[in-house]
């Protein structure tokens, strides 16, 4: 499959994530949208990694060439997992306090 498909796919996913963050008020849904954005980036990283690997091997380079991006994907996953655990804890605490997960509900700093 040509690389364009992956790029388009990642762009669409990312845009959906951004739109979701901007438009939704439910904290959990915003979280999910953030995950979506992170994963669109992961997808792009893996796709380019594969592309470079194929080209480098065809040109006779070492078989480890172009695999660094895949390492980054794991990093992002780990960080995302940590972030989710903290973020969900915050949302739980928020729900306990105000019985709501609407982010616009927490605007008392303005006053």
């Amino acid at each position, binding site marked *: 499959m040509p690389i364009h498909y992956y790029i388009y796919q990642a762009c669409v996913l990312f845009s959906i994530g951004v739109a979701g*963050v*901007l438009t939704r008020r439910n904290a959990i849904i915003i979280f999910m949208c953030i995950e979506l954005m992170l994963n669109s980036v992961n997808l792009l990283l893996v796709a380019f990694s594969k592309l470079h690997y194929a080209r480098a091997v065809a040109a006779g380079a070492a078989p480890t060439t172009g695999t660094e991006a895949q390492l980054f994907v794991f990093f992002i996953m780990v960080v995302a997992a940590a972030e989710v655990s903290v973020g969900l804890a915050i949302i739980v605490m928020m729900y306990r306090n105000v019985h709501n997960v609407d*982010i*616009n509900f*927490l*605007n*008392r*700093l*303005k*006053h």
Partner: protein
Amino acid sequence: MTNFLHYAWLIPSLPLLGFLINGLLRNKLSKTVSGGIGSAVILASFLLSLYFFVQVKNGNTYTAHYFDFISVGQFSIPFAFQIDQLSSLFLLIITGVGFLIHVYSTAYMHHETAPHFARYFAYLNLFVFSMLLLVMGANYVVMFMGWEGVGLCSYLLIGYWFKNNDYNNAAKKAFVMNRIGDLGFLVAVFWMMQVFGTVDYAGVFKQLPGSIPTSAIVGITLCLFVGAMGKSAQIPLYTWLPDAMAGPTPVSALIHAATMVTAGIYMIARSNVLYALAPTTMTVVALVGLATALLAATIALRQNDIKKVLAYSTVSQLGYMFLGLGVGAFTGAVFHVMTHAFFKALLFLGAGSVIHAMHHEQDMRHYGGLKKYLPITHFTMLIGCLAIAGIPPLSGFFSKDEILIHAFAANPLYYVAGIAGALMTAFYMFRLYTMTFLGSHRGHNHDEKPHESPLAMTVPLMVLAALAVGAGFLGIPELFAHQAHLLQSFLHPIFEKGESIMASYSHHQHPSHNVEWALLAGSVGLIVIVIFFAIRKFSKFTISTGQPSKFAQLLEGKWYVDELYDAVIVKPLLRFGGFLNTVIEKSGIDKAVNGIGKFVQYSSRQMRLLQSGNVGNYVLIMVVALIIIIRIILYN
């Protein structure tokens, strides 16, 4: 063995010590103690001065260098005292007359409460300290310190009765007028540093006459003279001195007659070498002195306040001294300073005794016939009046004659004007004498007879009277006896250089003995006539209700010089200040400052609205901003 003159610092330190004791412990000391300390320190200074004078007379002059004030590269200003003929003479006058006046004050000020009494003596001691610093300094900077110190003490003592607002205003006036003069002095000192690279008397005079341009010397001497105008009350800065009579009478005697006001003459006499090289300045000095002598004498003719008459008389006599300096009679001017210190202090103290007896009445129209109540005061005052009028053989005759003869040699017109002033002097002094002591008593209170003052007041009067009679014999002119002018030969080392420089360009012919005899006889004759005329005119004085003539009103109004200054300088200055206050300050500076504050408040109130508290908005702004940043990065 070190030179004993190195201990010159003791002379000013003693009055400083007296000042500290009286000033710091004024609430604890009794009147007897504070008055005693105040007088004793001056007496000690006087005895030391006497010893130093004898040393100097034996040819032992000395410059005592103590430490350096300022030392920058090649340039240094030392703190040093110079004990020579001129300064030792002034030391004697200051401490001697000062001591007598301190003693007099213990009685005159006795009605004050103890703390105020001690405050008075503290100020008086501080004054003597500053004055000693002024005359002992070996350079212009030390002199300037004393110069400022005496100005301060003069201010403090004029405003001694600080509850009276008029007195405070008089004190402020004196201070401001003096400051104007001081500025001239300061400019001269800086100029001297630039031109000569030193401010030491010895260092400056050593370079003269030399390559220094005449224009610089004229400038320096004129600036110095501005300082002298302020301190010694010459036109145009003389108006503070008559107002300074607000202070206690002994203060007027010490500061505003005998010592401080002669600081200008001392300074010019000290700088005689500089002045001799600036003929333009000499002419200015002579003319200003002459004009002041005449103007003040005319004003004195119509004053009714006994102290005001003496004040204008002082201004007038100072004018004579400047005339003497201006025509190169340095010795004559210093001689007149000395004799004037004696007879004017005597007259002021006598006036103080009269005021004391009359319960602080100063208007001569309410005196009269005091001769029989105040015999000692009357007799000593008569001597003072005769001395200032110039009747031989009293001291004023010799000193004034010396100045006038030199003026005649320089320009006969000076002499004519000088004699006119001398006649006016005789007239107003005997007007004062007659209105006070002769005729019938015109006091308000006929039940209570005036009484003679206590011994502490009359003894200084008698001593000063003796000095006023005898001091003249120190300067017997060449006309009467050969080589009898003791003062001239004593001061010769100081004025030698200046006089020789003067002689090199001026061709003043000293008048022949016959001319001199004629002038002397003529002037004395005229003065005697004027005196008898004044006595006849005022012995039957009654308070007239009629309107005085226009000219008399002009004199009584002091030529309206104060009003002129008020209209030309003070009022425009106040108006300008008002303009700065209302326009520049209120609507300019204040508005700008407040405007900045208001702008910040307004703009922050607007910016606050950006913080909506809505997370969605923040995210949106973040995304938009990121897009913009990425775009900028990618396409630049």
